[in-house]
């Protein structure tokens, strides 16, 4: 059965391997270039130069590229689910060859299990290799940027991408088993997996562990660190406040000393017509004006030390879902399909 599975999977395996080889070559090249950039930054910084500028330049050189690569790595599980998972059973049902292979001296459940295991192991190998190489290539930048917990980077490093790929592949296989036609199965797999990949980081991940909350006084400096100021429905807010190395999952509205939200008109006054003080900084006089109001926000975040707990926890959830799907597929192939 292993032989047959491999014989049927050969062409797809070679295509996947070719794709992986291209990606690997580029990642090795990039990893070496990043290490070169890292050395340059350290020598400039160590020689008494402007460390902050050297760092900004070094990170600026590679962070965007790494972000694109994180996007690319997010595609890998979807592609594996689509091209390795969905056709695995659907093509047999579509072409009727299940009626040939189910009448060899191998039970359907064994047939299904072996197919799932053989191609599943290949899925783990390819996604693991891709994730390993990107994690290695990006590690000097990640160490300095301190953003490994941010939504996009988190899902593109270490073990999480492998768990994503295992789920996408199993999902593709089971969808193919239910839909029985390859193309619709491929489309449906990508659709469902995309929804999962949107829901988990935004809805599930923040609740994997209760977040740590901290009240941060809004001094002029603190306000100037923010990425944006504004008022959406619900009161005036600051956006883009960070905690070093942590993943900030929620920021409250601006609150006054007694814990109530800042009144809209007081915010508007500072925002549109602040007293002139000649202050510099991102928000200038507005920051100074707001700082005088003795404001604070409550940040909820997952501290950096929980990074690995989150990697394993999220991976475990994906693997458990994949196991459930595989178990359902096994039951379905034995009882329901003809």
């Amino acid at each position, binding site marked *: *059965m292993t032989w*047959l599975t491999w014989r049927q999977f050969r062409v797809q395996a070679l295509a996947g391997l070719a794709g992986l080889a291209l990606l690997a070559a580029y990642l090795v090249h990039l990893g070496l270039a990043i290490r070169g950039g890292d050395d340059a930054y350290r020598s400039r910084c160590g020689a008494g130069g402007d460390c902050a500028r050297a760092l900004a330049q070094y990170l600026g050189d590679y962070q965007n590229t790494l972000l694109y690569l994180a996007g690319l790595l997010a595609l890998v599980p979807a592609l594996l689910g689509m091209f390795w998972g969905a056709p695995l059973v659907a093509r047999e049902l579509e072409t009727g060859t299940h009626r040939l292979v189910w009448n*060899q001296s191998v039970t*359907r459940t064994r047939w299904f299990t072996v197919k799932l295991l053989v191609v599943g192991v290949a899925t783990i190998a390819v996604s693991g290799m891709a994730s390993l190489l990107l994690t290695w290539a990006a590690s000097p930048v990640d160490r300095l940027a301190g953003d490994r917990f941010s939504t996009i980077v988190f899902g593109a490093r270490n073990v999480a991408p492998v768990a994503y790929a295992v789920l996408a592949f199993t999902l593709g296989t089971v969808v193919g088993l239910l839909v029985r036609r390859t193309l619709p199965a491929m489309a449906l797999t990508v659709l469902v997996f995309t929804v999962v990949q949107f829901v988990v980081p935004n809805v599930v991940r923040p609740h994997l562990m209760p977040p740590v909350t901290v009240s941060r006084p809004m001094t002029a400096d603190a306000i100037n660190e923010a990425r944006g100021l504004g008022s959406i429905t619900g009161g005036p807010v600051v956006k883009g406040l960070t905690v070093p190395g942590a993943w900030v999952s929620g920021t409250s509205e601006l609150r006054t000393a007694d814990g109530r939200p800042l009144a809209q008109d007081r915010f508007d006054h500072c925002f549109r017509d602040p007293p002139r003080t000649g202050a510099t900084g991102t928000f200038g006089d507005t920051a100074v004006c707001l700082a005088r109001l003795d404001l604070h926000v409550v940040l909820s975040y997952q501290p950096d030390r929980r990074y690995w707990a989150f990697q394993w926890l999220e991976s475990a959830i994906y693997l458990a879902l994949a196991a459930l799907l595989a178990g359902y597929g096994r039951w379905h192939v034995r009882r329901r399909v003809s």
Partner: protein
Amino acid sequence: MTDQNSPPVLHAEGLTKRYGRRVALSHCDLQIPSGRVIGLVGPNGAGKSTLLQLACGLIAPTAGTLRVLGARPAADAAHLARVGYVAQDTPVYAALTVGDHLRMGARLNPSWDAALAERRIAQVGLHPRQKAGRLSGGQRAQLALTVAAAKRPELLILDEPAAALDPLARDGFLHHLMEYVGELGASALLSSHLLGDVARVCDHLVVLAAGRVQLAGDVADLLAHHHRLVAPRGELDRLPAGLELVRREPAGAYERAIVRTAAGTPPPAWTVEPVGLEELVLAYLGRAAGDPTVPAPSPEAAR
């Protein structure tokens, strides 16, 4: 050839298969002894393919029981090894070569007969390097049949095996099938709507129409118990006990009919002619289709 102790090849009790509301097979009772070549005949949509798919375990019955070689179809790997099946559209893996198919058979079947497979492939003019996707319909059927036969099953189930073959290939195939069954003491169950083929190779017959078994039995017994009577008009309305009217064939002053006689019943005094297998099958199929010449009181007789 027949081992009296071996379980029946096929034993169905109240076997029913529904697809949604459509009834494909309804309360079928069948008992087929082993060592036979069984012909399954009936019009399109009669439930032939359904019965064969049930027999090889591809589908499960809605109600009733079916035992093949004494066990539930496709019960486990060992039972799968005892039953060979070729689906009607003779599926093969288009991307694999003929040789790959034989390798698959060898790896997936413990009792694989490589010599038989290679001999058959050579016999039908296939080359191991040929891609199965490029074969003609007939060649594909031969490949599928080879894979099914070389696992040396005790029961070989073939759904319309001759449909894709040209007359010469069909002749050869039926010949080999007979040889194979004889050699191994295996049974074969094949569906066909070519009554000539069935008459030639089968020694047991199952007539299926409208999802029900119309007739089943060894061919020799069936022929011995069916007769064509020729009697004066009206006489056939009053058949003696032990005679069952199958089909009436009005013809002028005399009437002809095919009747079934119960065991031990002497044929009636009217002129009796033998019945051929094809006529017999057609008579039962005509009766099942509600042919007006069939049921007992015809309009004339009622007058």
